């Protein structure tokens, strides 16, 4: 005989009915960021886009404030100074092999040796300063704020912070062949805070970043 009415089973524990604490899923994101509990790997030396980075913290970080997104300029933006460093490192070798065409100044060999060594140390410093300019230009996104650390000049650095609820507008721009090919662009944040505009320049996957920030602000675009 068929049942006309079946009483619902009693729930043993109310918590079973509660939705699991899951992270918002951003468009194009891999399944690894399935829940807030999952963590990504340690941040790499040349990493420029990292979700849920491990082993990273910043000054004045609040307790339980988790870093959701770690950003740097796309590594391809370093190609210009890498090429310059390569060329200026190769020049002395070329001059040495063709020294008949470019006569070495009549100096004692010891002077030439010191000048040569010093030249390569200067090239090393050139590479180092360019690298740290990229390495320390970091942007971080946490569930409550955005942090932008700028290292524009070698004797100047600046740390700007804005809360997500102060953000008025977010945009991104991705123009140019190289930018389209390597998928990087500029991401701008308009705020009501003291620093009106945050610029995350040449970051990888700007659309993805926009989705993440928008999602954190409470929007629902591309959130599955």
């Amino acid at each position, binding site marked *: 005989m068929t049942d006309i009415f079946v009483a619902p089973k009693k729930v043993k524990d109310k918590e079973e009915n509660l939705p699991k604490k899951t992270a918002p899923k951003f468009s194009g994101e891999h399944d690894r960021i399935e829940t807030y509990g999952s963590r990504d790997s340690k941040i790499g030396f040349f990493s420029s886009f990292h979700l849920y980075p491990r082993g990273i913290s910043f000054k004045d970080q609040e307790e339980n404030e988790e870093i959701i997104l770690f950003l740097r300029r796309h590594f391809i933006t370093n190609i210009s100074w890498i090429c310059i460093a390569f060329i200026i490192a190769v020049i002395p070798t070329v001059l040495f092999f063709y020294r008949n065409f470019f006569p070495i100044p009549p100096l004692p060999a010891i002077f030439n040796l*010191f000048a040569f*060594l010093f030249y390569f140390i*200067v090239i090393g*410093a050139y590479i180092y300063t360019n690298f740290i300019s990229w390495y320390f230009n970091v942007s971080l996104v946490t569930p409550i704020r955005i942090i932008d650390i700028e290292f524009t000049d*070698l004797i100047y650095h600046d740390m700007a912070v804005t809360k997500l609820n102060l953000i008025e507008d977010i945009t991104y721009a991705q123009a140019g062949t190289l930018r389209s090919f390597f998928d990087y662009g500029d991401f701008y944040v308009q705020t009501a805070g003291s620093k009106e505009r945050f610029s995350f320049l040449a970051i990888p996957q700007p659309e993805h970043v926009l989705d993440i920030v928008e999602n954190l602000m409470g929007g629902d675009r591309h959130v599955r």
Partner: protein
Amino acid sequence: MYANYLQLLINPLFILKIILLIMMAVFIIFMLLILNQVRALSRTVKQPTSAIVSAIGLILLLAAASLFLTALVIL
């Protein structure tokens, strides 16, 4: 006696040595500034690989300082 000093001062090799030493000294000061900045930025954002970056800077500084001292003695 003064003539000997004057002869030394106008010696092109001596002038070159002084120029090289000054350049190295300026470079060492520059590297010290850079390392100071790196240390400050490492405190601002703690990254797992910050220590390696600081170590590379320190190696460069030590190389420049040792080259300066060697040049001061040998040249």
